[in-house]
């Protein structure tokens, strides 16, 4: 049985948690409040935690200065395609590595995992050359194909494999006796049971794709093709200085869907992490 905490201990614990919360909550609070401040108030001293003056026009300027709706759509559909693609690839690869006996399975898995050790900065130039030759530069293809078949998918494959390894083999044997072949066992038994792991893969992948910055600035050159992280850098004045309040308004709009996804899928996210034995 859990020991009940005394009221004093409880208060101290909550106090400590509130203090620990500050470094996580403060940047978001600063972003949201600064997005409605006039630019002079952002740098006012002492800092204004609560805006004294409100300037709501920053939000309309976000849409006036850039094709922000188009960029929003670009980010959204790329993240969606990448997420679905990664879920398909990683669940099938993870299942194969966990359940199908084939020669050198573990060695191949180790080689695949090595992909995680190579930073994207190392591969970006050869990838650019490759996509240039394929005529895919300044298209969204590199932003879709690289994550689905690259390092993010390797990580997702690892997560899925770890999950499938824990599935009782008797379930699959029962399915074999019930008349299912390998693919149907995967689709009808293993995959539905892998929902928590799939949910965490979906969230990780969506976040990764949504926040992708290096690849868009390398592969994309026209504003209407930009994704949101890249678009954020474009809110500058005539001298190249950032228009902080507009940029922060765009950043707030950019963070919004991620926040919503996390709030909705918080339970699956935590469960998924617990299932895979991974830390965030």
């Amino acid at each position, binding site marked *: 049985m859990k020991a009940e905490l005394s009221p004093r201990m409880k208060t101290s614990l909550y106090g400590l948690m509130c203090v620990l919360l500050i470094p996580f909550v403060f940047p978001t609070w600063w972003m949201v409040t600064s997005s409605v401040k006039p630019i002079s108030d952002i740098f006012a001293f002492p800092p204004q935690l609560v805006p004294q003056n409100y300037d709501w026009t920053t939000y309309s300027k976000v849409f006036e200065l850039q094709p922000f709706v188009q960029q929003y759509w670009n980010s959204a559909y790329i993240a969606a395609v990448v997420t679905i693609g990664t879920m398909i690839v990683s669940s099938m690869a993870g299942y194969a590595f966990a359940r199908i006996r084939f020669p050198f399975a573990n060695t191949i898995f180790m080689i695949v995992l090595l992909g995680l050790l190579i930073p994207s900065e190392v591969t970006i130039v050869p990838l650019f050359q490759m996509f240039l030759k394929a005529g895919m530069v300044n298209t969204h293809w590199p932003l879709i194909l690289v994550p689905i078949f690259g390092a993010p998918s390797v990580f997702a494959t690892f997560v899925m494999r770890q999950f499938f390894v824990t599935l009782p083999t008797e379930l699959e044997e029962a399915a*074999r*006796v*019930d*008349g299912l072949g390998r693919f*149907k066992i995967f689709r009808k038994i293993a995959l539905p049971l892998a929902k928590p792991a799939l949910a965490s893969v979906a969230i990780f992948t969506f976040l990764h794709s949504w926040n992708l910055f290096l690849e868009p600035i390398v592969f994309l050159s026209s504003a209407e093709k930009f994704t949101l992280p890249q678009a954020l850098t474009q809110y500058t004045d005539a001298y190249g200085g950032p228009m902080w309040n507009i940029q922060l308004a765009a950043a707030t709009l950019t963070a919004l869907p991620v926040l919503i996804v996390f709030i909705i899928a918080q339970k699956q996210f935590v469960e998924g992490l617990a299932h895979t034995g991974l830390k965030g």
Partner: protein
Amino acid sequence: MAEVTLSDVRKSYGAVDIIHGVDLEIRDGEFVVLVGPSGCGKSTLLRMIAGLETITGGDIKIGGRVVNDLDPKDRDIAMVFQNYALYPHMTVATNMGFSLEHRGTSKAEIAERVKWAADILGLAHLLDRYPRQLSGGQRQRVAMGRAIVRDPQVFLFDEPLSNLDAKLRVVMRGEIKSLHQKLKTTTVYVTHDQVEAMTMADKIVVLSGGKVEQIGAPLDLYDRPVNQFVAGFIGSPAMNFLPGTITSEGFSAPGIMLPLPEAVHEFRDRKAVYGIRPEHFVLDDNGVPAEIILVEPMGSETQVTMKLGETQVTGVFRERVSLSPGATIRVRPDLASIHLFAADGGQCLN
């Protein structure tokens, strides 16, 4: 329903032989129990019949058809697993109808078959529940329902009761047996529990180290074990063994001379093991002395641990006698029921 025949069935993992050529005939509608200690290969043998393990040699026939290379789904068998293996994301009804769904059975027929099986097993009120919402016994019943709904040629049970508590195990044992009597489907049942084997089987196959030690009806195995392993494995409490030598006066065990039937004197001077079941000791003032170590009254009988010479043995007496540790009683082995086993190899001599 079908007969199952195993001819010289072998299984090896690399150079390690697990099953050493098993021959077994299971008649149509028979309830056969494979029994043996952990690691004897009984589950492997069952899984080989199911097609979940490949065989290294020999033939397995189900209904006269060699099934060595057939997938489990093509063998027309149904299996109940030790951990039930119910699909956690499906309701009881879906679990039970799942195999039919994949065999192209119409929805109406699936519903009818599921209802039939649920009625037999008393699951009708649980059909909409998920496995996690069921007790151990209910899960076990659903696993059986999933097996019977298909009306297969052979049922295979892999230690299905081992996860249940003792009381429920007895109840489920009865249910499986009565289900078999109702359906008369050929059944192969694996257990390490010899009581389960004795109470359920038409025929018991005792396995040890991947070899068949003896095949026979439960009471045959109990009364006429072919070797010391079977004698010791079948029966609870287990048969007592006293090592010694057959002499003209009787059986010379450490510290005591035990009587022998006339017929075994042909083995005179041979080293042997004297086997006697606990219930075959008779309280007799003319018997041999035995020092009482422990008395366990069970109600219907009294189990007594005692020292015969230098060997500790167990006796079971139906009489209500007041015995106390440290006292000496006199017991007589029932000569018609004693067994003599060769000291080398353990084969039964009488």
